[in-house]
């Protein structure tokens, strides 16, 4: 580990950091611009390169009738749908993953690994494939443009992730722990929630984190399956993608949309450092 390696290490880490931050810095700068400071070539530093305005930020609270986006309601819709979808997915996914990790299933040529693959393979389908059939199906149940309808779709989107992570996790938890619980007088359900569940917190946190990420970042389903009653954040923000794009309010909105999950990043890092998650992700 010479000096050379150390220098190289800091160089790479710094370069990558710049790359990671660059679009955010640009977005922050742009969010204080107006039409003129955008269309006359690139500008960077407020007061030096251009006269900053708060137009972009104000647009976030204004109604579209005044040229704004009003992302407040979509913001909370997004949080609600993502959290609800994640919760249900984790609940069902954890149960299924436990079953797949601990018990043997046989039906014809189908084995445990096939069932696990079936769960995970749902991620292979691009949203475009499912969007139309989902539209027709949700329409039949009058679930279009409702939070519930979106949650149903998010379950398909997120449960595979929960199953994938939790099967892996449970495979690493010694099954003797649950056996001991059974021997100590728990029936399988009690063993699950008194012993297995409390010891699966790291796995559940990881699964939850991935569910939150993939739920929060989805665009196409909410785009196609909602109209007016329920709008999610990405859809509301993309609705700024007009033929004259207001770069400033778009940048402000983008920054707002990033904020909640940055909190998630801190949580993840904390658990990583404490070593609680490593077992869950291995």
């Amino acid at each position: 580990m010479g000096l050379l390696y150390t220098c190289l290490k800091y160089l790479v880490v710094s370069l990558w950091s710049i790359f990671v931050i660059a679009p955010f810095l640009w977005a922050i700068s742009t969010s204080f611009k107006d039409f003129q400071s955008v269309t006359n070539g690139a500008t960077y530093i407020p007061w030096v390169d251009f006269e900053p305005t708060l137009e972009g930020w104000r647009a976030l609270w204004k109604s579209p009738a005044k040229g704004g986006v009003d992302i407040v309601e979509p913001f909370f819709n997004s949080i609600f749908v993502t959290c609800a979808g994640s919760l249900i997915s984790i609940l069902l996914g954890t149960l299924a993953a436990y079953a797949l990790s601990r018990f043997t299933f046989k039906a014809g040529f189908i084995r445990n690994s096939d069932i696990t693959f079936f769960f995970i393979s749902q991620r292979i389908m691009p949203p475009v494939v499912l969007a139309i059939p989902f539209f027709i199906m949700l329409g039949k149940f009058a679930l279009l443009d409702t939070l519930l309808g979106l949650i149903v779709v998010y379950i398909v989107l997120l449960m595979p992730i929960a199953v994938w992570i939790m099967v892996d996790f449970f495979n690493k938890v010694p099954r003797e722990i649950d056996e001991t619980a059974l021997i100590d007088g728990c029936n399988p359900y009690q063993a699950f929630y008194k012993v297995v569940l409390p010891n699966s917190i790291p796995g559940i946190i990881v699964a939850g984190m991935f569910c939150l990420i993939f739920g929060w970042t989805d665009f196409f389903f909410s785009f196609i399956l909602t109209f007016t009653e329920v709008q999610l954040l990405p859809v509301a923000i993309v609705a700024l993608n007009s033929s004259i794009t207001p770069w400033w309010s778009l940048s402000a909105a983008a920054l707002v949309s990033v904020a909640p999950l940055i909190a998630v990043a801190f949580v993840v890092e904390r658990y990583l450092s404490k070593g609680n998650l490593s077992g869950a992700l291995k």
Partner: protein
Amino acid sequence: MNFKHKYLFLLPGLLVLLGILIFPIGFTVRLSLSSWDSFYPALDFIGLDNYVRLFTDDKRFWEAFGRLSLLSLTTVFLQYVIGFSLALMVWKEIVFQRFFRVLFLIPMMTTPVIMTVIWRTFFHESLGPVNDLLSYFDVTPLWLSSELLAKFTVILVEVWQWTPFMFLLLLAGLLSLPKEPFLAASIDGAGPIRTFVYVTFPLMAPISIGAIIIRLIEASKIMDTVYVLTSGGPGTATETSSFYIFIKGLREFQFGYSAALSFTYLIIMIISLTIIAKILVKLMVRGN
């Protein structure tokens, strides 16, 4: 262990998923046998005509597939290499360790469709900062409108967005490695490179394979980035399978045909991902 109770664990999840999916999948298959389009929205039956068209008369679909392979394999490879390097660098002592770790995770937490809009302004060829800075060197590359660079830009944005995913999985893997093999290696006097080749990498092989497969699955769906950044252009230079299916389905409203595309795509993806997984296991676990 084998109890009747096992079904009560598995079935809620499985049945919910099956229940939600059975209609969409069945409907897609049925739709692919019909000529449903914007003008005749009906489930008539035209046999395998759509599939015949797909296999005999649709070069664009197969070209899109080729492009998808190129884009997804390249991005996942880059994400893996970069993610692994970064994980190695912040694994052991480094100043501001926690800061870097959080920072490197952040891009993954952002919504692709939104961040790509920012990227589009970032690479805007006449109003964006990249070309503005490069113009000092008298070059103004056409990031989005030359065939080669547009692919590069899509890859760049994908790498920015999803390298953190690899980084996270691999860093967690590194942090959970046992200490003994490293002790043994240092006692044997192995340098950092030898330690990496003979200890770290083999130990990380299983988690690497998992991470790569999952990323390949996700990368093959690449859609939001292309949708915002280039709309598949210039020409068809960045048109991938899912974007082509999107064009046929939701732009041109050839539902029947796009269902046939979707179904064929799914089959191909499942088969090729299975093969890739097998190959990876062979390649990476060979050492052990």
